[in-house]
Each structure stands twice: as structure tokens, then as C-alpha cells.
């Protein structure tokens, strides 16, 4: 075919291995194919099947100059986070891990008793993040917890990101116990102030150096240049690129991404989230600019009964279809009825997930009038909401689903975007652009703007 060089981006997902071929010269997507992920046997089998499908689409003459991958296969990056006070360093550690694309399987606080240590061992995380204390603050608890973790019969690497006065001491305790700790800057160096970037970096390094191998994914590295980050991290990267742009290529501005999946619903907000109203009192942690939350109980396949419960029950015909979805999690809707059930599930998942992600306002009545107390991110001013994930991208009702992420006048306490323009990840390739950003940020921003399309476009009454 005499084809140009293409760049390949691969996502070893929990269910499907997706391959996206990008033509950097024309700035287009040449093909997007997928095949079931084969992590139980050999990851390269599923990859091989996907690549054969790719060949059918682009022909045999193509050469692939770059090949980068991300992964959420084999359970994803399963992390346990440990902090001191639940609302403070524990929450900071959890947010840092989520921002790095981890699946947080347990969060712990205060001095870990034997029962918590046993629980951590049972959870068998891939990586443990140990925080606690502001810089110059509490020393006792992080050292106590380091001693407990040092004795635990667990091979997982650890990151120490607490009170810097004793961080090295905590690492030494862990090392003496035969562990492999890495020290990072404190997740909460000062009271109320988060610093999640340094920890995110360390997590990514460890993901590349340890986790890929520990999960038996390194066989894939014979073919790809590297599995360079967890999949949710690639999506968050793409979200940041689309929002902020890069030098010479402007982005769309502050935005929210909703990623609906079979097992979870992820929300990413790339926004400062400062209060829109003057004179309000702000309480709680100052949340990260690029914030990711995962609703592990809100999926439209694996956790579908939680969603049905949140709907307040469902009629018989609905249940029958839902049961089929729950049984066969790889199923995509075939009939109009099935599509309606799928959409109803996604609608509830999106509403709930966004409600939990966005900040809230509570009004107190004092002698001299009402006082508003804001917690979390005020996202009312955000002007873009982008939908991604199979159940959303492929649904005929995606616009109605995404509307659930918006502000509701009947629920003023929830600070969701008031009047955003709704976009869709039209080719379902966000992860690929997040990886592309590693190679050429400017190209990634341009392609994101090309493939993330406003939903009102072409209707004749776009704003």
C-alpha cells in the first residue's frame, strides 16, 4: 500500500484490548479496533487478535513508528492509601492515588491496629501510599504505621508521602523490614493544602518499573515501546490537554469528563472550582485542579444492581434485561428496549457520580442573614462537559444521559455546571490522545479538539 508511518496506541482494558492507529501527518484516526483482553493466559493473544483486525482495516503495508500503551487489565493499579485524619491527609492520599489512575481498594486512617494490617494484607494491593502529618506536624502516627507495614508479609512497593521531618525515618523502618519504599513530597505539606503532583509522578514511575511486570503484562512489551501509565491516567491526561491546551494550541477551557464503564463511573474535573459567589465561607480541603473520582459502585454491568437500587427499583421487563446485562458483562444493547435500559442505567450513574464529585453549598441562617458554606469544587461556571465510555458514546440517548451531570435548580446545594456545552468523545479514543500527548502535546490537543465534538453541532440550533 505504500502507507505512511502510523502511530499505535493500545489500551489493555479489563474487558477489551483496544488499538487506535493515528496518522500524524493528516492528524486523523485511521482505525480503531478491539479484541477481548487475554490476561489470564497471555496478554499478547488478545493483542494479536486486535492487530489482525487492524490489518484488515488499514491493509498490510502500514508501518508503525511509535507504539505506546496503557493498561487497566488484571484489576488495574490496585492501591491502598494510609493517612492520619480521614478528612485531611487520608483524603489527600486518596485523591493523589486516584489522580494517578489507581483503583483505591482501601483507605485507612490513624494508627493502624492489627485488624487493619490484616485487612491490608487480604486486599493484596499492588502499591501502598503511606501519608500522615503536615510537614513539621504529627510524627508519631506515620512512624507507627511504617513499623506495622514493615512487618507485614506483603511484597507491594510503598510510597512514603507524609510529614517530611520523618519521611526518611519511616522509609528506613520499611527498608529494615525488607520493603521497597520510595519517598515523595508530602501530599499535604501544610494544613488544608494538597500537593498531589509529586506523588502522581512516583506512582507512574513505579507502575512502569514494577507493576507491569508484577501483573504479567511485560510480554506485551515485546511489541509495544512501553505500557506507560494506567488507563485512567491517560484519560485524565487527555482531559488536561483538552482543557489547558499547550503553548501554541489553545484548549477549550475548564471542563468535566464523565467516563461511564461497566464496573465504574469516573469523573474528571479540570477546573479550579473556586466559589462563584462572593462572600461565601469555604471549608475543607482545597481540591486538586485536575481531580479524578471513581464511583466503584456505579457501573452499568458489574455493579448494575447498585444503580437499579439508586433508581428506586425497576419494572419487571427492565429487570429481565438488566439480569442479562449482569450475566453477560460484555454485552452491548441489540434492541431498542435494551438500549433504553442501558441508557436508564447510565443516566442514574452519571447523575450520582457527578453529585459526589462536585462540591456543595450549605446555607446557615445567622442573626444578620444567611451565610453560605462551600465545600469542594464549585463547578457551576464550567462550560464544557465531555462524555466518554462505551455505554455513553454509543447510546442514542447520550445527550439526555449527560444532562444529568448538569446543575439542577431543584437541587441547588450541588455545585454542578449550570450551562455547559455538551461534547462527546466521538470515536471513543480519549485514552489514545492521552498517550499521544506524551509524544506530541500540540498534535494531541489538535486531535482532541477534532474528535471531541459538541453534541449540538449540525442540529442547526447550536449556541
Amino acid at each position: 500500500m505504500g502507507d505512511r508511518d502510523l502511530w499505535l496506541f493500545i489500551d489493555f482494558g479489563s474487558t477489551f484490548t483496544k488499538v487506535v492507529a493515528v496518522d500524524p501527518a493528516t492528524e486523523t484516526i485511521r482505525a480503531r479496533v478491539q479484541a477481548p483482553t487475554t490476561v489470564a493466559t497471555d496478554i499478547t493473544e488478545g493483542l494479536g487478535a486486535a492487530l489482525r483486525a487492524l490489518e484488515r482495516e488499514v491493509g498490510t503495508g502500514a508501518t508503525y513508528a511509535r507504539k505506546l500503551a496503557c493498561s487497566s487489565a488484571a484489576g488495574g493499579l490496585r492501591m491502598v492509601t494510609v493517612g492520619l485524619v480521614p478528612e485531611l491527609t487520608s483524603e489527600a492520599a486518596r485523591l493523589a492515588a486516584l489522580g494517578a489512575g489507581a483503583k483505591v481498594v482501601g483507605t485507612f486512617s490513624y494508627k493502624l491496629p492489627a485488624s487493619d494490617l490484616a485487612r491490608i494484607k487480604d486486599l493484596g494491593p499492588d502499591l501502598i501510599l503511606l501519608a500522615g502529618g503536615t510537614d513539621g506536624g504529627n510524627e508519631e502516627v506515620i512512624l507507627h504505621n511504617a513499623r506495622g507495614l514493615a512487618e507485614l508479609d506483603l511484597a507491594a512497593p510503598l510510597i512514603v508521602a507524609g510529614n517530611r521531618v520523618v519521611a526518611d525515618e519511616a522509609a528506613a523502618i520499611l527498608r529494615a523490614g525488607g520493603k521497597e519504599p520510595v519517598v515523595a513530597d508530602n501530599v499535604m505539606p501544610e494544613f488544608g493544602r494538597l500537593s498531589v503532583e509529586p506523588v502522581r509522578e512516583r506512582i507512574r514511575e513505579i507502575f512502569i518499573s514494577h507493576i507491569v511486570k508484577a501483573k504479567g503484562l511485560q510480554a506485551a512489551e515485546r511489541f509495544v515501546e512501553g505500557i506507560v501509565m494506567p488507563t485512567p491516567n491517560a484519560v485524565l491526561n487527555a482531559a488536561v490537554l483538552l482543557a489547558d491546551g499547550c503553548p501554541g494550541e489553545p484548549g477549550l477551557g475548564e471542563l468535566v469528563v464523565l467516563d461511564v464503564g461497566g464496573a465504574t463511573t469516573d469523573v474528571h474535573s479540570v477546573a479550579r472550582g473556586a466559589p462563584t459567589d462572593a462572600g461565601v465561607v469555604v471549608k475543607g480541603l482545597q481540591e486538586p485542579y485536575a481531580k479524578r473520582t471513581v464511583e466503584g459502585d456505579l457501573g452499568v454491568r458489574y455493579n448494575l444492581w447498585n444503580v437499579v437500587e439508586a433508581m428506586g427499583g425497576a419494572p419487571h421487563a427492565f429487570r429481565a434485561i438488566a439480569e442479562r446485562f449482569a450475566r453477560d458483562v460484555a454485552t452491548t444493547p441489540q434492541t431498542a428496549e435494551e438500549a433504553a435500559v442501558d441508557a436508564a442505567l447510565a443516566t442514574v450513574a452519571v447523575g450520582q457520580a457527578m453529585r459526589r464529585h462536585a462540591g456543595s453549598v450549605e446555607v446557615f441562617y445567622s442573626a444578620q442573614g444567611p451565610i453560605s458554606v462551600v465545600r469542594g469544587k464549585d463547578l457551576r461556571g464550567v462550560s464544557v462537559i465531555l462524555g466518554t465510555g462505551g455505554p455513553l458514546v454509543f447510546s442514542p440517548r447520550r445527550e439526555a444521559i449527560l444532562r444529568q451531570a448538569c446543575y439542577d435548580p431543584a437541587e441547588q446545594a450541588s455545585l454542578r455546571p449550570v450551562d455547559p456545552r455538551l461534547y462527546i468523545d466521538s470515536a471513543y479514543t480519549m485514552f489514545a490522545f492521552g498517550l499521544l500527548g506524551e509524544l506530541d502535546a500540540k498534535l494531541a490537543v489538535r486531535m482532541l479538539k477534532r474528535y471531541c465534538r459538541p453534541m449540538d453541532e449540525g442540529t442547526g440550533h447550536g449556541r
Partner: protein
Amino acid sequence: MRARRRAETRTVVTGVIGADCHIVGNRILQMALEEAGFKVVPLGIMVSQEEFVKAAVETDAAAILVSSLYGQGELDCQGLRDKFEEAGLGRIHLVVGGNLVVGKQEWDEVERRFLAMGFNRAYPPGVDLRRVIDELRRDLGGPARDG
């Protein structure tokens, strides 16, 4: 460990308790404490008892300086010492000041009530902050920065 501790400035937490919005005096207190070399964790206005406790746990604060200006100090401060006890910080140094009560009341009597509530020091309106800081240094003992 103790030796390294000495090199750090001591941390104190400030905040205006309850539903109280008077921030000015509290900020002046914060500035005076910082001037005197303390590391201040300022919680601002409308601070609940729980917020004071959580901040102290995480920052290993040596003292808490509570402001109350709007007249409901007595109600807002009740049980604060118990909350610290509960969190394992029962011995923390608690100071309160501002306009602690409504109307003209004998200061000695007001002070007695706040000390009985578990505060180590209570100060009347218009107190000289230099006195407050001198007494704070003395009460905390240990490594006074300038002797």
C-alpha cells in the same frame, strides 16, 4: 527525634469558633503570633470544635487559640477539652479570647467559668496581645525562640 524537633518552630492553631463571622481580630492575632515566630494554622471563621481537633492532630499543634466575638462563646466552647481528650490530645494548651460573653459581667467570674471548662487561659476584651504571647511562650515552656 527530640533534637530535630527543637529546630522547628512550634505550631499553633487559630480560629473563630461556632457560627461567628468576626474575622478582623482573629487575623490580627494570627499576624502577632507569626511575628513572634510561631507557625500558625489559621482555620478562619465558623470553625467547629471538630475542625480544631482535626487540625491539631494532623499538625501536632502545641496550642489552640480560640476566638469568640459574637457573644455565644460559652455555648460554643463547652466540651472542647473533652473532644481533645477523645482524640488523644487531652493535654493540649487551650486559650480563648475576644468578647466572650454578652453584656457587662465581672471578668473574674467569666474567666473562672472558662477555666473550669478546661481552658488554660482566658482573656478579656481589649487584652494586649504582647501579654498573650509572652504568657503563651511561658506556658508552653521548652525552646523559647528568643530566650
